[in-house]
């Protein structure tokens, strides 16, 4: 398989990995608010207030899943979506987890935060590598196009 094809496969993998994890998160959040249970999320016990606040979260998680699937249709042109997923989303998720832990949030624990931190960190690095590779492909494509014009 050509190197360019391999790179493209990796970029697509980054989008799909994030989209699948987002979809799983959305599914688990829906299970949580509808039935008060979760499969892998360690969420607090279901209360009317957490159910109420999930209204701000679930539509956005589903929206972001669709956004990633939209971006994978043109993986190189829409590579900025990988950066948006890595930086505001994952990095901020890590920072907010840390802030909640430092503020002594009783529903937050070091054990769950550590697992969440490792998963989010690996994902963030993958997204950033995906973006860098997509950027390189874009430059190669631009050079080819310039060459064709000359």
């Amino acid at each position: 398989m050509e190197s360019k094809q391999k790179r493209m496969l990796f970029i697509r993998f980054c989008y799909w990995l994030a989209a699948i994890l987002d979809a799983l998160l959305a599914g688990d959040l829906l299970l949580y608010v509808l039935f008060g249970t979760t499969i892998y999320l360690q969420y607090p016990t279901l209360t009317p207030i957490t159910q109420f606040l999930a209204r701000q979260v679930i539509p956005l998680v589903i929206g972001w899943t669709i956004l990633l699937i939209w971006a994978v249709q043109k993986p190189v042109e829409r590579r900025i979506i990988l950066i948006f997923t890595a930086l505001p989303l994952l990095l901020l998720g890590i920072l907010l987890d840390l802030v909640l832990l430092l503020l002594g949030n009783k529903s937050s624990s070091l054990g769950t935060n550590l697992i969440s931190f490792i998963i989010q960190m690996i994902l963030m690095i993958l997204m950033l590598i995906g973006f860098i590779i997509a950027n390189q492909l874009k430059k190669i494509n631009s050079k080819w196009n310039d060459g064709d014009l000359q």
Partner: protein
Amino acid sequence: MNSEKSKIIFVRFCYWLGAVLDALMAIDMTLYMVFNTYVYLELLYPSDQAKLALRHGTGLMIGWTILLIWGDQKPIERKDLLLMTAFPVIIMGMVYDLLLFSAGNTFLTLNGLIQSYAIRIPLTAVFLIGYYIAQNLKPKHKK
């Protein structure tokens, strides 16, 4: 001002309207999580459980704000973002609110539901109109 120019201005207004409202929401969510206060959101009393439930939403809200600002750089080519903002983000929020109210959630009153709909229905309409207009414009009209 010609008609195409005013259409572009309207499409760009849609992106900025969404971005500004999302940014205000993100600021309020952060204020609530970190400082136990808020400016305009009725986020109720500080609760550890609520803060944990909101941590995913805050990052996504900031992400969506940046996304809409990015969309505004090429408003016609990236018109799909307007559609995605209308559905699933806003429309799904409305459906969820309705389910919550029907289930008798004590934090969502009838007034709260009406207020939420009074804001979200015009917003959805604005985004869908923006998308429709952008679809009928040629991509050569860049910022």
